């Protein structure tokens, strides 16, 4: 391993520590804001935003995505696209039904069901 390389790695180590600290802070922040009432949508969005940021840190630095090669990016871009397609189209489909479609069935109280598998 040549010196330049070793030097690079040493620089990376600092970054790793920084990311680590940021992740811990992010975790604490997530828990903290979940205690604050920002409305249902607000809490969910904020938590997801923080999660995405944390995930980006892990992927970007621990997994070296920031300096990865092009074929990897290509693969991941398609994956992300299909994932979004799966999620978005499914949700869309579930919410677009013929007019006057309704749901049936009554909700049981939360813990009414027995714990074991009856059938």
């Amino acid at each position: 391993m040549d010196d330049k390389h070793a030097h690079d790695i040493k620089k990376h180590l600092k970054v790793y520590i920084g990311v680590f600290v940021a992740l811990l802070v992010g975790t604490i922040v997530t828990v903290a804001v979940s205690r604050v009432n920002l409305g249902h949508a607000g809490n969910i969005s904020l938590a997801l935003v923080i999660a995405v940021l944390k995930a980006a840190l892990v992927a970007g630095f621990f997994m070296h995505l920031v300096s990865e090669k092009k074929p990897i990016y290509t693969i991941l871009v398609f994956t992300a696209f299909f994932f979004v397609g799966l999620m978005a189209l499914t949700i869309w489909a579930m919410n677009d039904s013929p007019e006057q479609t309704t749901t049936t069935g009554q909700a049981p109280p939360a813990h009414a069901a027995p714990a074991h598998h009856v059938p």
Partner: protein
Amino acid sequence: MTNTFDYWFKHKLLDLPYLASRHGEHVDDLIVYVHALMAVLFVGWLAYFLYAIFRFRKSKHPKADYVGVKGHVSNWIEGGVAVVEAILLIGFAVPLWAKVVTKPPSEKESTMIHVLAKQFNWNAHYAGPDGIMGRQDQALAAASGGSDPFGVDRANDPNARDDVVVMDNFVVPVNKPVLAYVTGLDVIHSFAIRSMRVCQDAVPGLRIPTWFTPTQEGEYKITCAQLCGNSHYHMSGILKVVSQAEFDKWLAAGSEKARKNTAPKSYE
């Protein structure tokens, strides 16, 4: 409708079954158009194909030509296919679906029924002569031991007392839209009456409307189009299309019978 070219094309060439609903005409028309497109493409390509393999067989054409076809005929053909598909899509399939499938008529102007599919029969709930659907309660359905899968609350809901529930033998008046709210009780079934050109999955947990306007009196098979268990093949019902007068009579009689049968019994 016999003996016209239209009839010949649809029923003799394409083997479409008997048609007895209003929107079915459009379904059949679109089926014809699509098949015409397919036929043109298929026959055209097949003729070309047979000619090409005949003309360029090795014994006749020992030295192959490196370049082959020049020019852009193929682009025109591909473009043409795309255009025709777009026309069929935008001009027919989408607007017809919007009109016929996802926009049911109002309950007032139609014969409204609730259709409940369960292993392995078809059940229908009619509002009765008062025209108001009685309340349904699943607990009652369960308590009925299967005799009333809808659980019509005759004891508590005055609108329910005249309601009619039938199994496997549906009756509807001719020339008036039938609005059916389809649901399943146990597994997914599919409410299909081929002569009416309707098919709607009966999904447990969802109540989905489907509708059609019968144009011919007569009896038609109701079939189940979704695998629903070992007697799926045997899950058949009959849709009887009758005149309005006959229907009213039938409904009144059924309603009377229902009152009598359930009067003394209370569900409390």
